[in-house]
């Protein structure tokens, strides 16, 4: 009975995490289309949300990585997964509150690794999966996006540079419906699966699902709904950081950045890398900007964002470990998880209350 209560809380919190993941990442997804005026904010948000939902159904490799290759699912309990989720969720909302682009993926991995280490030690952390499928791709993928974005825009400018700018801009804005749509699908694929993966991890840890069983359809559907809902709710405050402060881009650069971002995310999803889509999109935007003129990129802001990324993993791991520690104070039953969830919810509510009093994020157009 107690296990079922904890599992239900884990599933609920995982879905809330999925919503915050979409909420946090909306700005990254739509900033390029909005800043080049390819789409209005309202249309961009709705369009992206629908395609996020669709994207969540096209692959399950990332869910498998999160569920089976980061920590030993047989050694952890649903309480450990819950503490990790609370670490990730808290960090996601903290960075959203301060308008900082962060990585929901790294927050999730960091939270789960932190709570696992606190609960059963580092022996239950699967180094091959953590290093090979999370940490190294986390560094490589944004750099690949940066290089590919720069190469793409260099060739594109060489091809269309001598043409009249008006029709070229209009054509690339039209093309951004396709490239922006593909980016939304890519995001839904990679980030939607993180929610599915962590629910899978909890189901395996609880013994509800066998270690070699596939992802149940209800988990896929729930993950897809969560990411789409979160995207629709939007993270308008971060738009100002991502879309406008890193670089001012034209429609051709927007198209190149979105095509590059979606190619990197889809290719990585195919091999099961749970990437930070924020980092990849930022890398692609910077590459497309640097391909035109290095000085066009505001590297100082890019540095601040990189610093926030670096902090994400240890910070969410710390919160995850702390959440597990608090939960353990109440013993093995459901009381600890309930208390720690209520505590996190109260802190989040206080944060939102303060935000409401001191000014809400930029409202939807």
């Amino acid at each position, binding site marked *: 009975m107690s296990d079922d209560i904890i599992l239900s809380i884990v599933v609920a919190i995982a879905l809330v995490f999925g919503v915050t993941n979409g909420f946090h990442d909306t700005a990254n997804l739509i900033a390029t289309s909005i800043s080049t005026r390819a789409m209005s904010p309202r249309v961009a948000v709705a369009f992206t949300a629908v395609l996020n939902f669709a994207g969540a159904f096209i692959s399950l490799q990332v869910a498998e990585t999160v569920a089976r290759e980061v920590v030993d699912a047989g050694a952890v309990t649903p309480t450990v997964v819950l503490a990790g989720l609370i670490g990730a969720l808290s960090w996601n909302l903290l960075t959203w509150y301060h308008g900082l682009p962060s990585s929901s993926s790294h927050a999730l991995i960091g939270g789960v690794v932190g709570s696992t280490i606190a609960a059963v030690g580092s022996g239950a952390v699967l180094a091959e999966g953590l*290093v*090979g499928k999370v940490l*190294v791709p986390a560094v490589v993928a944004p750099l690949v996006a940066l290089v*590919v974005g720069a190469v793409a825009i260099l060739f594109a400018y060489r091809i269309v540079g001598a043409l009249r700018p008006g029709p070229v801009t209009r054509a690339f804005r039209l093309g951004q419906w396709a490239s922006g749509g593909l980016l939304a699908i890519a995001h839904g694929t990679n980030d939607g699966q993180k929610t599915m993966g962590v629910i899978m991890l909890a189901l395996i840890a609880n013994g509800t699902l066998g270690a070699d069983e596939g992802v149940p359809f209800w988990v896929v559907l729930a993950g897809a709904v969560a990411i789409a809902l979160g995207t629709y709710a939007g993270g308008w405050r971060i738009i100002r950081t991502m879309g406008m402060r890193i670089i001012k881009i034209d429609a*051709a650069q927007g198209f190149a950045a979105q095509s590059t971002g979606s190619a990197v995310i889809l*290719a990585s999803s195919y091999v099961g890398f749970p990437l930070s889509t924020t980092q990849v999109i930022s890398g692609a935007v910077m590459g497309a900007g640097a391909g035109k003129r290095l000085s066009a990129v505001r590297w100082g802001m890019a540095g601040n964002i990189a610093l926030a990324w670096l902090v994400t993993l240890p910070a969410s791991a710390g919160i995850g470990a702390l959440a597990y520690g608090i939960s353990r104070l109440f013993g093995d039953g459901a009381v600890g998880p309930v208390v720690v969830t209520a505590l996190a919810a109260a802190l989040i509510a206080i944060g939102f209350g303060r935000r409401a009093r001191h000014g809400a994020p930029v409202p939807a157009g």
Partner: protein
Amino acid sequence: MSALTVASLVDADGLIESSVAALIAGAGVTIAFALAVYGLSRFADARQGGASLAGGAAIGLAIVALAACAAAVVAGIVIMVSDRT
């Protein structure tokens, strides 16, 4: 953890596979779309100037380039949907 240990943990095949695919698809789609824009623009110019042969070549280039873009997107989704073996 030594550098050698970290190196042994890296999924080199996956990294190379995804990086090469990203380069081909990301840059390829952008270049193909730029060629389509170029073809359409030249087609419009040729029509205004009455150059039918140049116009035909330009619209041909635009159609082929747009088809390449569409094919790349469809192939990407189909590959994603299929299981990795």
